[in-house]
């Protein structure tokens, strides 16, 4: 019996969200009196995988099949299912990402497991039950959910678990083959197109986010958002009305029907704070709202606020960040 952790890698590195997933998995393993094994997907280097020892991982399995570099639902599902069988995994932990959801949902059928997504805390195992807390109602509530099957799959929401760091600890990396065939790559992508991200920070992975709404008055003013984001090392985002009128691309739209983010810091500039927008950002650790309307509903959800004109306030903030650095 063991705990299996699925770590997503990109450009040779383990994604930050997967470091959290690994830390979650090793703590669950400790609770259950067993060890945590990681299975890596995506493009990884052996030295970076070995460093998962710092998150408490006992062993890493890696299949170096080159076609696994990009996400392929069929192949990833088979690979992880094979790793779960090999390790006799009773609990499987993934990131609550597009990959985690796509693979986790198929795995739950194949392995006859209970599945919980959007999980925000370590499980509670009192009284022989296995209960996880997960976000529901678009960030407006939480649910304690009991996973009733013998086998359990958990997708952990980004930035809800602190990543462990035991400096210098390494895990052995074993090569692992799931005997994948061409048929497993039938749904392989024909093409992968990565977005050009301002400052190179990916929005779903970002710790800091600077976001603009209709109060920015037009796309020609976005340099004010970008300047602050660049100074902070933040990703940029926008509200739905802004992406609807094409001031900014859809992949920057944060909200109920856009991307859900949970960064350490979310700075909203000229966004009134409609309930649908809040649904996408309300699990951010700290929310800053800048709006000239003191009655903007967003101030009720904010930790810090400035009632003022974004065109006046943003350059001051950018300047203050530069001085601080």
């Amino acid at each position, binding site marked *: 019996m063991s705990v299996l952790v699925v770590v997503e890698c990109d450009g040779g590195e383990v*994604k930050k969200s997967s470091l959290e997933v690994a830390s979650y998995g090793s703590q669950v393993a400790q609770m259950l009196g067993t060890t945590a094994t990681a299975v890596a997907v995506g493009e990884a280097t052996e030295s970076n995988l070995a460093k998962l020892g710092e998150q408490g991982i006992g062993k890493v399995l890696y299949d170096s099949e080159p076609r696994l570099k*990009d*996400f392929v*639902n069929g192949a990833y599902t088979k690979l992880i299912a094979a790793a779960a069988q090999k390790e006799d995994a009773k609990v499987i932990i993934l990131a609550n*990402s*597009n*990959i985690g*959801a*796509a693979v*986790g*949902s198929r795995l*739950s*059928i194949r392995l006859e497991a209970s*599945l*919980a*997504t*959007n999980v925000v805390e370590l499980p509670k195992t009192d009284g022989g039950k296995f209960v996880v807390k997960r976000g529901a109602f*678009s960030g*407006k*509530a*939480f*649910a*304690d*959910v*009991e*996973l*009733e099957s013998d086998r359990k799959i958990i997708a952990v929401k980004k930035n809800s678990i602190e990543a462990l760091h035991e400096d210098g600890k390494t895990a052995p990396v074993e090569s692992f083959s799931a005997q994948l065939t061409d048929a497993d790559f*039938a*749904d*392989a*992508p*024909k*093409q*992968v*197109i*990565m977005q050009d991200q301002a400052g190179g920070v990916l*929005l*779903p*992975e970002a710790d800091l986010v600077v976001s603009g709404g209709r109060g920015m008055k037009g796309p020609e003013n976005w340099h004010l958002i970008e300047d602050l984001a660049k100074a902070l090392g933040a990703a940029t985002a926008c509200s739905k009305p802004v992406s609807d009128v094409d001031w900014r691309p859809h992949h920057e*739209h944060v909200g*109920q*029907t*856009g991307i859900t983010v949970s960064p350490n810091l979310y700075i909203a500039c000229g966004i009134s704070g409609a309930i649908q927008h809040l*649904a996408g950002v309300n699990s951010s650790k700290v929310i*800053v*709202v800048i709006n000239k309307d003191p009655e903007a509903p967003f101030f009720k*959800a904010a*930790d*810090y*606020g*400035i009632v003022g*004109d974004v065109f*006046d*306030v943003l350059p*001051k*903030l950018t*300047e*203050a*960040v530069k001085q*601080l650095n």
Partner: protein
Amino acid sequence: MKFLVCISNVPDTTTKITFTPDNKEFNKAGVQFVINPWDEYALTRAIELKEAQGSGTVTVLNVGEADTEPNIRKALAIGADDAIRVNAHPKDAFFVAKQIAAIAKDGGYDVILMGKESIDYNGFQVHGMVGELLGIPTVAPAMKLDMSGNTATLEREIEGGKEIVEVNTPFVASCQQPMCEPRIPNMRGIMTARTKPLKVVEPTADAPRTEVDSFALPPAKQGVKLIPAENAGELIKLLRNEAKVI
């Protein structure tokens, strides 16, 4: 081509969320229910593709009790041809996926569409479960869907980009914007929806695999700390020294 569109009945996006006194269930009292906003993309795109092909059918499927029928009728008014309601409370994603798979197996559908997730449970699970139960590919979340013969070309969102994926029918896709502009019913649609077939079937005997023990609301915010605009730089100091986030 036969399209099956799965829709969920959810509280309106502006609903204030509260629970029953034992915190076991969502408090439905006085709440307006709508078609899950993500499912509207699936529904409209299915109708558009059927119209472009000039033939075929769009069937709407909902797993829910009788109180979901107004929104099923709304989907028919938007342009679906017929509807099936599986007469059961949607206990969990696995239970719902089993119902959808049972209907899909019998109906011989070419394309099964649904929204990325429901805005109440936020599971983002049913698409993959249905695909696996039927042994067919799932593309999730899909931002674009075009059909040419039996081959579909989809754009699948990945963190930081997108993949172009080609699959043959039958397949499952979970939809999100900017796939299409969701349609609203017109008067003629509302009139014809009344007489379109809505079949009610009983659920399979499958048991759910998860159970909600209790719901809870997030802790209230402490209240906003306001910084005067003329002193905006002070905010950056607070973010570093007090909130410790930069």
